C-alpha cells in the first residue's frame, strides 16, 4: 500500500500530463456519449407528446417490454447477429489465410475483397436493391439461367432477413479480413517450422496453431461484428423500412421509428436504454469472461 502511494507521488507529474492529454477526448466523450446516455435514461421515465412530457415512472418500461413489435425486433436482431457474425468471421479468417500467401495477384484480391467496406451502407443498399429486384434484378436474372422463377426477395417475410444477412456479410467480411491479415503477420514463424518437422498436415496446423494464436484478433473482431449487427440499420431505410410487417426490423431502426415517425420520445428513450444495456452486456461478457480464457 505504502509502496503504491510513493509510486503515485513520484509519478504525479507524468500522470497529470497524461490526464491533460486525455482531457480533449474526455470532453467529446462527455458531450456525445455520457451526457446523451444519462439524458436518455432520464427521458425514459417520461411519456406523452414531445412538448408536454409527463413523468410516468416505470409504466413505460412495462409497456415496451410487453410490446409485440419490440419482441419481434429483439428476436430479429438476435437472428441478424447469429446470421452475420460467425459467418463473416469464418469467411474473413479463411480469406486472410488464403491471401496471406505470397502469390500472384494477392494484393489485387485483397483490394477486391476489401472494397465493399469502403462503400457507404446507403450506397450498398441501393446496389443490392437492384440485385434483389424481382424479375429483372441481377439475382433473379442469374437464377433464371437455372430455370428458377421470380422471387420477391425483399417483399417476402421469409426471405427478407436472409437477403439482409447475405448483404451485410458481403460488406463486412473484407473489413474483418484486414484485421486477420494483420494478426497473421504477427504470428511466430518458429512454431510453424516445428510443426512442419513433426509432419503436421495443413488442417492440423490451422486447428492447433493458427486458430488458437489468432484468438485475440478473433475476440476483437467479434466485438466489432456484434456491435455492428446492432448498429447497421441504414440499409433498412432504403430497402424495406423494416417491412414487410416488421420482418426485417431491427432495434436501432425501431428506435428511429419511435422517435422520428411516431414522435414518441419517451418510448424511444426506453428502447435506447435497452440497447445500451445489451451493448454493455456484450462488451462486459467479452472483456470480463472471454478475455481470460484466451491465451495471449
Amino acid at each position, binding site marked *: 500500500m505504502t509502496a503504491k502511494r510513493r509510486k503515485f507521488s513520484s509519478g504525479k507529474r507524468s500522470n497529470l500530463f497524461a490526464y491533460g492529454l486525455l482531457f480533449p477526448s474526455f470532453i467529446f466523450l462527455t458531450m456525445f456519449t455520457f451526457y446523451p446516455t444519462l439524458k436518455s435514461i432520464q427521458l425514459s421515465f417520461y411519456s406523452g407528446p*414531445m*412538448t408536454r412530457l409527463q413523468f410516468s415512472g416505470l409504466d413505460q418500461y412495462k409497456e415496451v417490454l410487453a410490446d409485440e413489435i419490440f419482441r419481434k425486433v429483439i428476436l430479429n436482431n438476435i437472428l441478424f447477429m447469429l446470421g452475420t457474425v460467425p459467418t463473416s468471421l469464418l469467411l474473413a479468417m479463411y480469406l486472410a489465410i488464403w491471401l496471406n500467401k505470397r502469390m500472384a495477384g494477392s494484393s489485387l484480391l485483397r483490394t477486391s475483397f476489401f472494397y465493399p467496406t469502403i462503400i457507404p451502407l446507403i450506397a450498398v443498399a441501393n446496389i443490392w436493391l437492384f440485385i434483389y429486384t424481382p424479375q429483372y434484378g441481377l439475382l433473379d436474372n442469374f437464377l433464371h439461367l437455372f430455370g428458377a422463377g421470380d422471387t420477391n426477395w*425483399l*417483399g417476402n417475410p421469409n426471405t427478407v432477413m436472409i437477403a439482409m444477412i447475405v448483404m451485410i456479410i458481403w460488406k463486412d467480411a473484407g473489413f474483418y479480413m484486414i484485421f486477420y491479415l494483420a494478426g497473421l503477420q504477427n504470428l511466430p514463424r518458429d512454431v510453424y517450422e516445428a510443426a512442419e518437422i513433426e509432419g503436421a498436415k495443413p488442417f492440423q496446423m490451422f486447428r492447433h496453431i493458427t486458430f488458437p494464436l489468432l484468438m485475440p484478433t478473433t475476440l476483437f473482431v467479434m466485438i466489432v461484428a456484434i456491435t455492428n449487427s446492432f448498429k447497421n440499420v441504414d440499409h433498412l431505410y432504403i430497402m424495406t423500412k423494416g*417491412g*414487410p*410487417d416488421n420482418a426485417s426490423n431491427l432495434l436501432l431502426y425501431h428506435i428511429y421509428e419511435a422517435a422520428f*415517425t*411516431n414522435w414518441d420520445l419517451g418510448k424511444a428513450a426506453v428502447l435506447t436504454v435497452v440497447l445500451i444495456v445489451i451493448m454493455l452486456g456484450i462488451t462486459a461478457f467479452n472483456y470480463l469472461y472471454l478475455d481470460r480464457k484466451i491465451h495471449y
Partner: protein
Amino acid sequence: MKGKLLSFVLVLLVVLAGCSSGAGVEEKTEIDFWFPVAVGGDVANIVDGIVDDFEKENPNIKVNAKYGGSYAETMTQVMASTQGGNPPELAVLFSIDLFTLLENDLIEEVTPLFEEDFLNDFYVGFMANSSIGDKVYSLPFQRSTIVLYYNKDAFKEAGLDPEAPPENWDQLVEYGKKLTKNGGKDQWGLEIPSTGYQYWMFQALALQTEDNIMSEDGKEVYFDAPYAKEAMDFWLSLGKEHKIMPEGVIEWATVPSDFLSGKTAMMYHTTGNLTNVKNNADFDFGVSFLPSNNQYGSPTGGGNIYLFKDLPEANKKAAIKFMKFLTEPERVAQWSIDTGYVATRESAYETDLLKKYVEEFPAALVAREQLEYADSELATYQNGEVQKIFNDHIQSILTGQSPVDEGLKKAQEKAVEVLKPFQ
C-alpha cells in the same frame, strides 16, 4: 497549435459579426421556411425563384428557405429545431401531420388571418385535411391524389382501345389479364405499390367501395369495416387469384420505373409523379380516374403550409404575407405545371397559363376532376403509430402471413388501443 486555431476562430467571428451588422442599414425581418425537396421535379430551384421574387417585392423581408429531404426528414428537422427552442415561421409538411403538430401545440390557427373568400377558393377536397370542423390550420400547397397511369401502346398491342381505360374493378381485372404477358415475366397488367404509402392505396379501394377508414376528428378508425374487407380482398386477389400483379410487397419507388420501362402496363400512383412520367415515357401514356367499385374514389395527399405559434408580431406579418404570395393563382398554376401536383385553388385553373397547358396536356386535368370524389387522407392522433400499425398489417395480408379478416381485425384492435387516450 490549439491557441492559434482558437484565435483564428475568434478573429473570424469578429469579422463575421462586423459584416452582418455593417451590411443591414435597415432592420430586416427574417423568416425561416422549411421545405421538402425529395418529391417530384426540381423543386429546389423553383422555390429559390419564388423566394427571390418575393424579396424583390418586399425588400425589408428576408426568407431563409431551408430544404429538408423527404417529408419525413423535413418534419424531423422542424421538430428538432422546435425542441431546440428555435421554431421556424413556416414549413411545408404533410397535411396529415396536423394532429401531431396540434398535439404538440406548435401551430397557429389560420382562419382569422385570411379572408373567407380566399380560403373558400381552395378545393374542398383539400381543405378536409387542412382543417378540423370550421377551424382552418394550414393552407393546401402541393396536393395530390392517386390516378391510374396506363400505357396506350401496350393497350393497342393487347387489342384494347387505348382511349378507353378500365372504368370499374371488373374491367380492371379483365384488361389486366389481357395485358399480362407470359405470367408477368414480360409484362404485368397492373402494379399497386405496397410499401411506404400502402394505407393510402387502401383508402382508394375502400372509398371506391363505400367510405373512408377514419373519422374526421382523428379519434376513430374503421379498418375492419365490411367495406374495408371487401377492398382488401380485392387487392389481395389481383396477385393471388387473377395473377395480373406481382404477389407480395411491391416497392413504392420502383413502380414508376417499372411503368416507364414497360414492366407493367398500368399503375396506381400519385399525380405528383405526372411530370416525371411525362418527361421520361418513350411511349404514349394515358391518365384516368381510378376504376370504381360502387363509386369513384381516391384519397388526397401531399403537403400544406403551416404557420408556427408564438412568433414576434413582425415575423408573423411577414410569414402571412409569404403564405399569400405562395398561394397566388398564377404561382399555384406554375407550380402545378412544374411538378404535376394538382393546383390547389379553383382560380388557378382560370389563369391563361394553366388553361393553355391543360389544352396541350389534358392528363393534367384528370386529378382535378377526380377531386369531386376525393376524401381526406388517413390522419389521426398518434398518426405515425396508427399508420405504421395499418401499414404492417396490409403487408402481412399481402404476403400471405395472415388472412384478410384476422389482419384487419388485429390492425383495428391495436389502433383502438393507441387512440384510447384521445376518446
